[in-house]
């Protein structure tokens, strides 16, 4: 009896952790894409997630779009916002030092949060699950149907990114810019264009995360900072710049938080994950899975 309850609990915590971890992983990937191409940490990454969620609510609930249409509209709008941010905030900087670029992304984060507050107000918004239905019962655990969507879409995004960066011309060009912007320029790759592409991809990725998680966690305008911290933490844990590291670290962080809530107390959940991030930064700054190549970060 005790064992079934315990194993049921463990499966429950595992799925809760995987679900929230998927969002951390997507956010960490967003950090990595923009960091790899530009060398900066985009502090607005968490706000992309918020915007993704709130736009999804707006399209699906208030405009009444069918879910797939709403989903791709959200991605479309966020790709546009990503390009907009690049053209009006990043590109005009005359001497793009790392510090000024980072300050600009902080400003972008504040602006996105403020605009979201004006459009949607301060209250949280809910969204129905993509497919309605009772939770699935697995070995003593109840798993929400939306969790499968979150996990499925996250895996799909990781596969897509792997394909994109290894097999497509523009993906390879972005990697070239990341490796050596000077050499990339010499062979005719336009670095500004690649940076713009990185912002478009990063904001779309964040928006996907927001759109799929909102049915589970609700969404409101000021959630961005916490998501950004956890996503950034995952990116650091996984070794800044490493895609596979970010995904593994994101899931790890989510599972750790969930087990901390389950076996210790939810009051200490954030503290435990932040202490872990600090610990890694102190002892192994290149990240758990980081290689020597990423040390320059």
């Amino acid at each position, binding site marked *: 009896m005790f064992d079934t*309850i*315990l194993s*049921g*609990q463990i499966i*429950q*915590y595992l799925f*809760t952790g995987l*679900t*929230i971890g998927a969002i951390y992983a997507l956010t960490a990937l967003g950090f990595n894409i923009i960091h790899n191409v530009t060398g900066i940490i985009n502090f607005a990454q968490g706000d992309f997630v918020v915007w993704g969620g709130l736009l999804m609510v707006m399209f699906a609930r208030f405009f009444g779009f069918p879910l797939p249409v709403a989903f791709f509209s959200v991605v479309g709008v966020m790709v546009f916002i990503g390009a907009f941010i690049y053209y009006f905030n990043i590109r005009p900087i005359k001497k793009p030092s790392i510090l000024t670029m980072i300050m600009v992304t902080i400003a972008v984060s504040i602006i996105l949060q403020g605009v979201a507050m004006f459009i949607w107000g301060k*209250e*949280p*918004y*809910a969204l*129905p699950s993509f497919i309605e239905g*009772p*939770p699935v*019962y697995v070995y003593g*655990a*109840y798993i*929400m149907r939306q969790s499968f969507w979150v996990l499925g879409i996250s895996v799909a995004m990781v596969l897509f990114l792997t394909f994109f960066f290894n097999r497509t011309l523009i993906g390879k060009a972005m990697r070239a810019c990341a490796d050596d912007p000077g050499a990339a320029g010499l062979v005719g790759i336009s670095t500004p264009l690649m940076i713009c592409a990185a912002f478009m991809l990063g904001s779309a990725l964040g928006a996907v995360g927001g759109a799929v998680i909102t049915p*589970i*966690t*609700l969404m*409101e305008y000021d*959630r961005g900072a*916490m998501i950004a911290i956890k996503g950034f933490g995952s990116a650091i844990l996984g070794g800044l710049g490493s895609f596979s590291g970010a995904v593994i670290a994101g899931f790890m962080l989510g599972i750790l938080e*969930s*087990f901390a*809530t*389950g076996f210790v*107390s*939810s*009051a200490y*959940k*954030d503290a435990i994950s932040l202490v872990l991030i600090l610990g890694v930064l102190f002892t192994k700054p290149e990240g758990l899975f980081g290689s020597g190549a990423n040390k320059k970060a």
Partner: protein
Amino acid sequence: MKKTAFILFLSVFFFVLSTASGWAADNEPYKIGAIVAVTGNASFLGDPQRNTLEMVVDIINEEGGINGRPVELVLYDTESNASRAVTLARRLITRDNVLAVVGPSTSGESMAVIPVVNRAEVPMIAFGASTRIAEPVEERKWVFKVVPGDDLAIRLKYDYMKRNGIDKIAIATASTDYGISGRQHMRELAPEYDIDIVFDDTYGPGETDLTALLTRIRGTEAQAIINWSIGRTQIVITRNWKQLGMTIPLYQSYGFGSARNIEMAEGAAEGVIVPVSRIVIADLIADDDPHAPVVKRYKRLYEERFNEGVSVFGGHAWDAMFQLRDALAEVGPNRSAIREYMENISGFVGNNSIFNRSPQDHVGLDMDAYVMVKVKDGDWAIIDE
């Protein structure tokens, strides 16, 4: 030239002074001071309170004032800031020379203002919810309260649970002032009702997923869950409770008493049990309920005038203002006589139920201040029996 101007000024000055004092003798308004959080993070409390205070003063003056004298409201905004509330309370007492103070909106502000009114010997009717505002009564000589405390809501819940054979419960509270106060009262009162708290945990106010916490409760013998929080987490826990297919009932704090919460839970709130103030369920109250005339009148007048839904918080302002009107009509403009009247008020019917105060109890409310309701078909339904 200068001299003429000066004489002219003096004569005008004395003319104004003489007419003013002559008018003051028989028609000087009764001045009542109000400090509420119109702006800042407690504006959801202070805004409906400001509206209600202005509305009630208009009602009283339209009815011919009190003993033929109009009421004048001097209202300041505390900006949800306790130290500002203290400054403004001093200003009301020393500069505006008010007869009594109503407000402040939050418990923190109310606590901060208590020493000021006690020293100046001015009666205050606070809108904060904390039980400490009116206790210990020896140190609260000039302080009164119109808001029923957390303890009353918890007593009502425990009482209801006992009658339904529940004696093992799980409590989940947010780590905010509101949650901490609720948790403290739940733990204190449980032995009195022979209720065993088999699970007790807190969570952060920003929590987005409470399935792990609920899963732990599932592993205990708890027969019911009480959640004590305001804001998003009370919706999150409701949705998670439904998503996990939990069969034990979920009780929420009175903070859940808003139609928007049912809406945001998207069907998950069905079956949730909440103690609410009557104003939340004004339309459901039977016409022969003694509270019906007051609660229904307040709701109708407020919604007509301000075009927005009435709230529990504005109801506190209504109760305080009408108590003061009764006091002034009875004893006239004398601060210590007003205090004495307020202390012995009995049978006063307000939005927060019927007040029966005494020198030992500066609130004067009992469990009847709340009504147990259940969410049914997306709306509140009064639990009979």
